[in-house]
Every structure is written in structure tokens, then in C-alpha cells.
């Protein structure tokens, strides 16, 4: 890693390390095994004491899942999918704009807290905060809305889905779910993974489309009773393929690089054309998703996108970036009080459930503990 990233080495951000690892493997410098290519991680130089105390979790993972001692042996590693950025697009209250009463939060939602790269630690933070806020919104929604259930409609959909599952069990098609699943995984890993380019993405879209068509001829080898995993996979496969197509098509259209989306043919981040979100919907019976773009308003941002702080300065700024940056700096100097500053830059308390709108006490503020004497800190209401 020091060869690739002299300043930060292994401690560069995840997307950077992943890319370097992948390119190293792609050059043919990886190790091969029955389960694919990988690299060796060598932490022996840190010494047994350090590993046993500070890196206890790492040591236990190596012990339990690999049967090796990292103080003495090399660890096989490779980049893998860890988190899904994006999801069901919701408003600030966690509600979908296209299906009333549908709420989503956390990794399943595009609230949108993370954009194209999810910072370490933010997943838990988002879960806790979104759970708190969206849960409240959901409760309010339920109180404010009558649910009238059309049992006839429910029955109609139930019978439709039941018939589809029964048909799946009986029809004896030629396609096998495990083969289709493996092909989908392979297409995504190869062409829609860490490194992307137009040729690869086009190939992925074509292949995923073909796999989706083949789903119409799935046949089960098992009986398909109860929680039969083959039936479950048969049910999910066309849906997973549609999602995969949304990702692949979105990546193909997006002619820039941004966060985890890395285009070898368009290596720069392009805020002048692509400061927007991709929204996908799938019309019934269509072969491809319908994509549209939701522009972000840079003039409403507290942190207008700039250079990330390390690595090369490879981005095309938004035309209003400098102007917004000046506004933010001015407000920061002008308002000493953080609540006033927030109201001036990016007001948001009106979006919170009512009971969360009041000012919260913060450690080391307003007599809540002394920054120079941490022992004396804390303590609730005086």
C-alpha cells in the first residue's frame, strides 16, 4: 500500500484501498486459491502484544474463521461488498414520495445521508438517529390516517402471487436458480464492481437483461414446500436482477466518477454536470428501468463539495461552488452561536418531529463541564 498511497498507506479511505487492492490483483500480482484471487495482509511486524490487545477482534476473526495466528501468519484478504449506498428515496420524515404510507430508514433508504460513499461509523449513527426520527413520523402518520383495507384487493393480489408460486413449482422449466444466481453475481463483480467502464457496463446490462428473460423458464429441483430456499431464490431472482439492472444502467449513464462509483473512462468527479441523484423506477412489463435525475441545490449546502483532503485534486467544480463556499465561511465567522449559524446556513429543525426541535445541551458548552478538566465534565440538570 505505501507504493500506491505514500501518505496514508493502508489507512487511506476504504474506496481508495479497495481500488488499489483490486488493480494489484488485476495486474496478475494476486495469490490464487480455489475460491478466487486474493492478496496477503502481513501484520506480523506489529508484534504479538499489540495484536493480542489492540487488535483482539482481528486476532479472533483470524483464529475462528481462518484457523491462523496473525502474529505468525499471513492473512488472505480481498475487497468485498460491505454496504449499499442508496435505497428507497424518502423525504426527511422517512416517507416515500411515490407510495404513501411506505416508510424506510437506515441502509434500505436514500434519506439521503451518505451519497456515494458511506463514512465509517455513519451506518450505526444513521440507524439510531433515523430510527428515532422516522419511527416518530410513522407513529404520527398512523394516528393521522385511517386505514381502510379493501379485502377484495388483498385477495386478488394474494391469489395472483399464489398462482405464480404454484406455477413455478409445477412448470418444470429448464433454467436453474443456482446457475442464474451465480451468473448474476459474476456479471456484477466483474463489470459493475470497483472499476467500471462503458464496455464493461454495457456488457453487464446486456447479460443481466438476458438473465432476467431466462427467469421466465425457471424450474425447481426441490419440492418448493414451505420455506424452501430454492423457491425463495426463484422468487427473488427476477427482483434482484431488476435491482442489478438499475445499478448497472445507472452506472453506465453516469459519465463521471464519484465516491465508490469509479469510471476508468471518466476518472474525474464532475460537479458541473452530475451533482444529482439517480432515481430509478421499473414500469410493469418493461425490459429496462426508467432513470431520472434529482438535482442537488449547492446553494443550500453547509459543506459544498470540494477537494476531499488527500489524493489528487481530480474534480470539476460546480459553477456556484466558490460562491457558496464564501457564504459558508462568512456565516461561520459572523455567528458565534451554533444554533444561529445553523439557521443561517441550513435550517432543518422544522423537519424534525416536534419533540426534537428544542435546543439540546452539549458537553463543554454553557457550563456543562470544563474542557480543561474532563474529570469534572458531565452531569445532567443542575
Amino acid at each position, binding site marked *: 500500500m505505501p507504493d500506491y498511497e505514500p501518505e496514508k498507506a493502508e489507512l487511506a479511505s476504504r474506496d481508495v484501498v479497495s481500488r488499489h487492492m483490486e488493480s494489484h490483483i488485476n495486474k496478475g500480482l494476486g*495469490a*490464487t*486459491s*480455489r*475460491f478466487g484471487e486474493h492478496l496477503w495482509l502481513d501484520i506480523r511486524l506489529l508484534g504479538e502484544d499489540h495484536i493480542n490487545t489492540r487488535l483482539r477482534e482481528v486476532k479472533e*476473526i483470524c483464529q*475462528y*474463521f*481462518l*484457523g*491462523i495466528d496473525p502474529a505468525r501468519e499471513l492473512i*488472505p484478504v480481498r475487497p468485498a461488498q460491505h454496504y449499499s449506498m442508496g435505497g428507497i428515496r424518502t423525504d426527511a420524515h422517512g416517507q416515500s414520495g411515490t407510495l404513501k404510507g411506505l416508510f424506510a430508514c437506515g441502509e434500505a433508504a436514500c434519506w439521503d445521508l451518505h451519497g456515494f460513499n458511506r463514512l465509517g461509523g455513519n451506518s450505526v449513527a444513521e440507524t439510531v438517529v433515523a430510527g428515532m426520527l422516522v419511527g416518530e413520523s410513522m407513529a404520527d402518520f398512523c394516528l393521522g390516517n385511517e386505514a381502510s383495507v379493501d379485502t377484495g384487493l388483498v385477495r386478488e393480489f394474494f391469489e395472483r402471487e399464489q398462482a405464480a408460486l404454484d406455477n413455478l413449482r409445477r412448470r418444470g422449466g429448464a433454467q*436453474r*436458480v*443456482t446457475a442464474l444466481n*451465480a451468473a448474476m453475481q459474476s456479471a456484477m463483480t466483474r463489470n459493475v464492481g470497483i472499476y467500471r467502464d462503458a464496455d464493461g457496463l454495457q456488457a453487464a446490462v446486456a447479460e443481466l437483461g438476458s438473465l432476467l428473460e431466462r427467469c421466465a423458464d425457471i424450474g*425447481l*429441483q*426441490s*419440492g418448493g*414446500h*414451505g*420455506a*424452501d*430456499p*430454492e423457491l425463495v*431464490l426463484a422468487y427473488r431472482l427476477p427482483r434482484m436482477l431488476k435491482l442489478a439492472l438499475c445499478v448497472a444502467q445507472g452506472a453506465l449513464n453516469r459519465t463521471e466518477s464519484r465516491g465508490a462509483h469509479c469510471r476508468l473512462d471518466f476518472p474525474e468527479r464532475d460537479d458541473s454536470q452530475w451533482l444529482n441523484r439517480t432515481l430509478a423506477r421499473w414500469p410493469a412489463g418493461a425490459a429496462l428501468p426508467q432513470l431520472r435525475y434529482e438535482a442537488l441545490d449547492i446553494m443550500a449546502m453547509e459543506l459544498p463539495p470540494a477537494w476531499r483532503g488527500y489524493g489528487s485534486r481530480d474534480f470539476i467544480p460546480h459553477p456556484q461552488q466558490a460562491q457558496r463556499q464564501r457564504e459558508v465561511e462568512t456565516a461561520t465567522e459572523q455567528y458565534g452561536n451554533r444554533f444561529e449559524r445553523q439557521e443561517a446556513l441550513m435550517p432543518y429543525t422544522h423537519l424534525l418531529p416536534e*419533540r*426534537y426541535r*428544542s*435546543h*439540546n*445541551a*452539549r*458537553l463543554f458548552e454553557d457550563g*456543562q463541564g470544563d474542557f480543561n478538566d474532563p474529570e469534572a465534565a*458531565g*452531569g*445532567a*440538570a443542575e
Partner: protein
Amino acid sequence: MNDAAVIAKDGEEHGARRLRFEIFRFNPCDPDSRPHYDTFELDDAPGMTLFIALNLIREQQDPGLQFDFVCRAGICGSCAMLINGRPTLACRTLTGTLPDTVRLSPLPVFELIGDLSVNTGKWMRQMSERLRTWVDVAEDVDLDSLETPMDPDAAQAIYELERCIECGCCVAGCGTAVMRESFVGAVGLNKMARFRLDPRDTREDADFFELIGTDEGIFGCMSLLGCDDVCPKDLPLQTQLAYLRRKMAKVTLTG
């Protein structure tokens, strides 16, 4: 993925060990299904776990084989099963530590969903509701003020017991639980011990006694300590059960 003997490109060992898996099969939703064991064979590999082995078997040999893995990292508790008779987490079990023949069965006590998949979630939910496994606070917390800090030693003691992943191994390995459906198990009793330690919980020993002071609770424990033997997180169940029993017995004496 190639099922034949392993001949790695970087010149490692040839001819890997051939593993034989005897796996319990029964689908309660299939009227023609009868409980039996199916045999599958697979080549061993360095660093192979049962997570890898079972997924290979399902992919290549029997797509209807039921089992549960979620995190595959020993933290969600989904994959607990009997491995050669002993309840433990499958994702963390290296085939290298097992004999050539491996017998896999679902955990006893829990409702069977199919094959190796059991409904621990349902059991844990009813236990949690019954024992009120949450912090019983006196009044609503004021969200705008700073939280009351907790003593670091108390937090550490709570953490040690909070590490439970509700895998169900302690219940499967318990002499009482296999006989008495309503026994709360080491998992339930450990949670009571955890909340007893929590300074925010307003419950006293007399309140905990209401929940576990019967032979469905602490007095049903026969001290066989199968739970302590099999807990994959090495929770201090032996000491916690002994401690709870003493405290609850004291409630009966002092009234």
C-alpha cells in the same frame, strides 16, 4: 467452483481430505417428507468453514437444503446447530477441526422450520416479553439535557453480559429446557442478571423475583452447566446463574 481435489496454483498440498456430511432433513410443510439424514460429500480446503461448506452443498448438490446464515461472522446468532451432537455456531466452525464425518442436526427445543433451520426468533421474543428485557425507567427521559454518565466499571460489567447474541446454544444444551418448555433458559437468566446491574433500571430484587423466582426461572436450573460449556461468546453463565440463585433465594428468606 471446482469440487475436485485441490491443486492450488502456488503449489500447495494436493488431494484434500474428503468430507462426509450427514445432514438432518425434514420439511414440516411437505406432506411427503419424513425425518431422515442425507449424506453429502465435499472436498475440504484450508480455512473452510461450515458456512462455506453448506453453501457449496446447496449450490452444487441440493438447492432445497435449509439452513440460516446472516452475518457469517459469529455475531448474529442465526447459524447455531448441533455439530456432531454439540450446539455451536456453524459459521465459525472450521472443517479443519472436525473429523471426516460430520453430523449436522437442528437445535432441539426450538420450533423446526425445516432441515437445519429453527425458529429461535420466536422463542427469544416470547422470553423477552415475558421477562421484560428492557430498562424499566422511573419516568420519561429529558432528551434535551445531557445523559447521566454511567460509571465505566458498571458499563464494562454490563457489556460482558450484553454480549449475548441469542443464538440458542445454551437452551439447546440445557437439561431443563429439553424437558420443560416454559423454562427461561440461561439466556433469559443472563438478561435478568444484566438488568440487575444496570443503574438506570428501577427494578429491585423483589421485582426480579416476580419474573424468575420459580422453577420456570432460576429455581428450574439444575446446575448441569451445559450452557456454560457451549456458549460461543464465553459468557460467564456459571457465575451469573449461581449469583442470581443466591440473590433470589435471599428474597424468599427476607420476604
